[in-house]
């Protein structure tokens, strides 16, 4: 990936807040003149002992296997940074600038992503470049993603349809699993959390003869029987006080994930890799606590869901083929999702017994080359994609559709690449819908080595998913006449990086203004006296800003934060779009020596009021959540460490929701209160 590599490494896993960013801004103003260069190594991590550096070899294999989008505002999160903090993928994503995650409970309960105010089905989630969004539902449940098997997460904010086609109105998330090969590395972890939650993982990567391997397992079980309080409801005609505690029932969950990755270097021919990622989970589904009655509060005792997912792919990567400037990659993939849901006694309905099987099979070809033409340097990408999505549903017709996409992108650099223009165009053709032409133009201006201005304008879209088109449960229906959602995305901002100066080891800041126009938004709503159906609604716009930054002092004190402020509104009425907080910020403080023998992390996450309804009449109050974690690497302790086999034995204790706040992202889905977690990470 070519996007500002130095700066990007500085921004990895970084979050910011308004306050933090302002501090950095002030600092930047004073230090700018002395910050003449960007440190080549990520600050704070460059001081890590060599043995702690992840021995992961990322060769020519590009994890996304996608055309690059160098001008996009991107966050790269290295999962190792969160080791010992007992965070899920959803929780980690939620702390990233521009991202909000809507959680519908605790461990194993549904969690949906929103980027820059999008819906969850307007975000493409990839696992090693393979789309996880099913054609049936469109969105991805983040609770199904095993954090222990991931190396990093790449978040590209604001559009992305040129790279991924339909659905990328809000952005793209690429989950990169542990890479095969490199120095042999074996890890194991055990965790125990409140509410009867136990988890474990084991991974190994290395080389067997000429084949690089990576194997991993991750699993957990939770009783999920945490307590919650009913929400206090303040209305025009009185207050219904919070009551409780009540027990979250039928909320046990278990999941097992297995990763297998093999790769082989083909010499001058490039490299081939094969990956398979398997998931099985089984969870009770208590549903909403919508009822002010009894101990159950409307929770279901009978709903249960089992899911299976398998993602298999093979990639032939020929980047730099025979040392030529032309390279490429060819990926073939198959994704299988099965979801079985059963509820023998749903309220007001007859028994629900659904079994949906989704298949997605396809291929993606990407070629790129670099050359100079007069004063300009070009990096041209040309590619194509084919995907065939199929749905086999119990007691319902089968559906399938094919999608073909062709894209072309040039990255034109002038003045020693101080100015880069990135025009791109994609043609997408989804069976049953008109051909979409998706232009994009990105600009990167490197004003100083430490200061870069970026901007993008692009068109994106989303075709309706099968549920939106064809769902048929009597009173809840799809709509075969839906039109695709159409969007126009624009953003502009800068990235600034500072090198060491005095006590400051490093500092960085990123700022972006964004604007999204979305037409034909699709929503299930009441269309008649008794029927809820998917409809194209009126246009909406989302304006906002993102500010992220961080710095590290004395080698011991790290601070990062981010702030996202949005104004998401329906154009016609001016009402705020529901389900999104206008403002969210994170403050994160890390304290500990560079060796990371001991590390204390404290966080504060603020989320402003979340509107629940489209009228804006119902909203969930603002909140601030605190988290704390303490990790000790026993392997580095004097006297003890020398007796510990392996390079790391990290014993961690974390408290989530320290003040035991009542937390809800949706009106009738409580989340756990204060949660304790102990984890043990062992690396041989």
């Amino acid at each position, binding site marked *: 990936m070519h996007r500002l590599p130095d700066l990007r490494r500085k921004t990895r896993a970084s979050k910011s807040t308004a306050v933090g960013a302002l501090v950095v801004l002030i600092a930047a103003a004073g230090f700018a003149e002395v910050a003449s260069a960007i440190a080549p190594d990520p600050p704070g991590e460059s001081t890590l002992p060599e043995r702690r550096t992840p021995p992961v070899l990322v060769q020519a294999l590009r994890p996304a296997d996608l055309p690059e989008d160098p001008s996009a505002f991107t966050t790269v999160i290295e999962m190792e940074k969160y080791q010992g903090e007992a965070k899920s993928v959803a929780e980690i994503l939620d702390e990233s600038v521009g991202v909000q995650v809507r959680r519908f409970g605790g461990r194993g309960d549904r969690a949906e992503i929103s980027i820059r105010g999008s819906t969850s089905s307007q975000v493409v989630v990839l696992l090693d470049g393979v789309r996880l969004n099913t054609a049936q539902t469109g969105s991805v449940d983040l609770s199904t993603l095993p954090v222990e098997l991931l190396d990093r997460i790449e978040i590209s904010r604001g559009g992305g349809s040129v790279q991924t086609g339909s659905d990328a109105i809000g952005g793209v998330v690429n989950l990169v699993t542990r890479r095969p090969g490199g120095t042999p590395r074996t890890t194991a972890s*055990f*965790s*125990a*959390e409140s*509410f*009867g939650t136990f988890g474990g993982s084991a991974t190994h990567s290395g080389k067997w003869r000429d084949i690089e391997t990576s194997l991993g397992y991750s699993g957990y079980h939770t009783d999920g029987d945490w307590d*919650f*309080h009913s*929400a*206090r*409801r*303040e*209305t*025009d*005609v009185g207050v*219904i006080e*919070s009551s*409780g*505690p009540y027990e979250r029932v039928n909320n046990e969950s278990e999941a097992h994930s297995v990763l297998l990755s093999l790769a082989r270097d083909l010499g001058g021919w490039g490299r081939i890799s094969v990956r398979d990622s398997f998931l099985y989970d089984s969870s009770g589904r208590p549903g909403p606590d919508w*009822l*002010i*009655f*009894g101990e159950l509060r409307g929770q279901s005792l009978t709903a249960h869901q089992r899911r299976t997912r398998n993602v298999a792919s093979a990639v032939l990567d020929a980047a730099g083929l025979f040392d030529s400037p032309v390279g490429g990659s060819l990926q073939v993939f198959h994704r299988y999702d099965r979801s079985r849901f059963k509820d023998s006694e749903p309220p007001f*309905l*007859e028994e629900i017994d659904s079994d949906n099987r989704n298949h997605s099979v396809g291929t993606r070809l990407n070629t790129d080359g670099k050359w100079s033409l007069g004063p300009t340097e070009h990096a041209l990408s040309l590619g194509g994609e084919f995907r065939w999505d199929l749905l086999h549903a119990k007691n319902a017709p089968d559906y399938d559709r094919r999608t073909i996409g062709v894209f072309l992108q040039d990255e034109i650099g002038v003045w020693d690449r101080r100015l880069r223009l990135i025009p791109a165009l994609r043609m997408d053709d989804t069976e049953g819908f008109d051909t979409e032409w998706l232009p994009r133009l990105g600009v990167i201006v490197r004003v100083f080595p430490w200061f870069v201005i970026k901007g993008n304008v692009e068109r994106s879209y989303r075709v309706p998913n099968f549920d939106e088109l064809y769902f048929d449960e*009597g*009173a809840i*229906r799809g709509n075969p*006449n839906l039109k695709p959602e159409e969007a126009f995305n624009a953003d502009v901002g800068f990235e600034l990086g500072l090198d060491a100066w005095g006590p400051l080891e490093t500092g960085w800041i990123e700022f972006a203004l964004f604007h999204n126009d979305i037409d034909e938004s699709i929503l299930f*709503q009441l*269309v*008649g*006296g*008794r*029927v809820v*159906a998917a409809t194209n*609604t*009126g246009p909406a716009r989302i304006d906002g800003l993102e500010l992220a930054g961080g710095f590290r002092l004395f080698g011991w004190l790290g601070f990062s934060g981010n702030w996202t402020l949005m104004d998401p509104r329906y154009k*016609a*009425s001016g009402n705020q779009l529901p389900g999104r907080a206008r403002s969210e910020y994170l403050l994160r403080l890390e304290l500990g020596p560079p060796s990371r023998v001991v590390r204390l992390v404290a966080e504060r996450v603020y989320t402003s009021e979340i509107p629940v*309804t*489209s*009228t804006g*009449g*119902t*909203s*969930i*109050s*603002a909140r601030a959540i605190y988290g704390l974690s303490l990790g000790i690497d026993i392997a580095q302790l004097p006297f003890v460490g020398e007796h*510990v086999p392996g390079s790391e034995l990290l014993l961690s204790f974390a408290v989530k*929701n320290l003040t*035991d*706040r*009542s937390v809800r992202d949706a*009106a009738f889905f409580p989340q756990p*209160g*204060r949660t*304790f977690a*102990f984890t*043990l990470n062992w690396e041989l």
Partner: protein
Amino acid sequence: MRRKVGIALLVASCCVLLGGKCGGGDGGGGGDGGSIEVVSTDSRCAALPSAFPPGFGFVPGDDSLIWVVTFGDRSLIPIDVSVVPPEHAASIATLKIPDDSDGDGKVDSRAPFPDDIHIVSPDLAFVTMSSYEEVMFFSPATGELIEVDISVPATFAKADNPGLPDPGAGAESRTAVSTTTCVKPPPDALDSRGAPFADSLMPSRWCDPATPSYRSKFTSGAALAGDHLFVSVSNLGNDTGTPDTQYLPGAVLVYAVDWSVDPPTLSPSELAPVLITTGFNPSHVTALEVAGRSFVLVTVSGAIGVAEDDPNTDEIEAAGIANTEASIDVIDADTLEIVATIPLGLAGLSPSGLRVDETGRIGVVGGVIGHQIYAVDLKPLAADPGLPGSVVEPIVLDGGDAVIFDADDPLLIPSRLGGAPAASCPGSVGGVAFDGNRFFVTESCDGTLTEFLVDLTGDPPAPVAVERFKFIDQLDITAPIRADTLTEPRSPGAVAVRPGAFASGPDVVFLVGQQEGLVCGIELP
């Protein structure tokens, strides 16, 4: 050494595991808890705790106080409607329906959901409940539940009324009467799809093992007439939301009551505990005194399905479909028989039920399959000496006797310009309210309030001529149900005119269903 390390790791692992279990986490999530704020975005309205409030009623003798029943939060809320927007009444508290709503000493096995409130007097109201089927007794004056001594005659089988005290075991004090009753239509009775109901029910699910039978459900209306309480039960079957929704034969449950004693008493009628209605889906009952005779008018809505979408059109087809005939059944409250029925055709009557003008002459009921209302002339009930005291078959009071507007010739509510799409929401009456010789109709699809007048001067012969009904005015009181109006209040429902003379404040009070549930007051032009 290796062994020591192994032991150390094992101990560390155990610490982790035990720590996680014992540390537990208090996780009550109640400290400094967040809240959900519900406010009205319409200045004429006050937000209620939950959406789609099903009904309300004025307290007789008080032009300011109404009681609103709410659905999700299961409350009875006193509202002062003398101001705009309405406010919580200062003098009386909200009643949260208790977890033991019938006062039998046990938490209700299922949550009862309020369906409507039927206020009889300042001291007595009935709250109909579904799911945990019952009728709750409530005092609008005090805002408290009323305890009633309920007994079951020894001649009944326990299975006939499983939620009531044992037959012959004496009275028990209850705050609600269970309306889970064993209904036993004639064995050859058909369900709304035309199939013998006995065939569509597994014998294992019969409540009387010896007879095709089923337990009543979807308690829909309650009315006090004479010495009896009449309760309609819709008996909705399977496949709701489909074109061919199934209904089992409808019924009206009858209880002998005595409100003159303290505590009042109630028991299933020995004479006729269950009346099978002439059609499907009895959704409301209205008490009527005519010429010294006491009647109960049953709104038999008929089986109502929902249209299937046609993928070949651009519209979403979701209109209500009337699958069976509707009628107004007339029960003689003394003989406890259905003595007459007023057929209205494939009308799809609104569950808001029949409303009768203060003279007792005209009954009006809305439809849920279009912008239409229906009217019946009730004069024959008083004038027709032929209404028998004991019948085998009810007398049919048709177009020559009592029908003014029926499915073939309805009174049309003018469609709103730019209103709801006809394919998805062609019209659905949310409520009807009389004020003298005028009546007001809320229409949920278009979001309108329409005023009609009926001229009864000169005691016209029955049935009243259709020309005597005049359209007066129509107000847009909420947004129509269209894809692009989801940001505005929609779906007006129950409506009432403030009774009595008043110089200030709103004239009409109505409820709004979504997105927030609202209670609203407006002054008429």
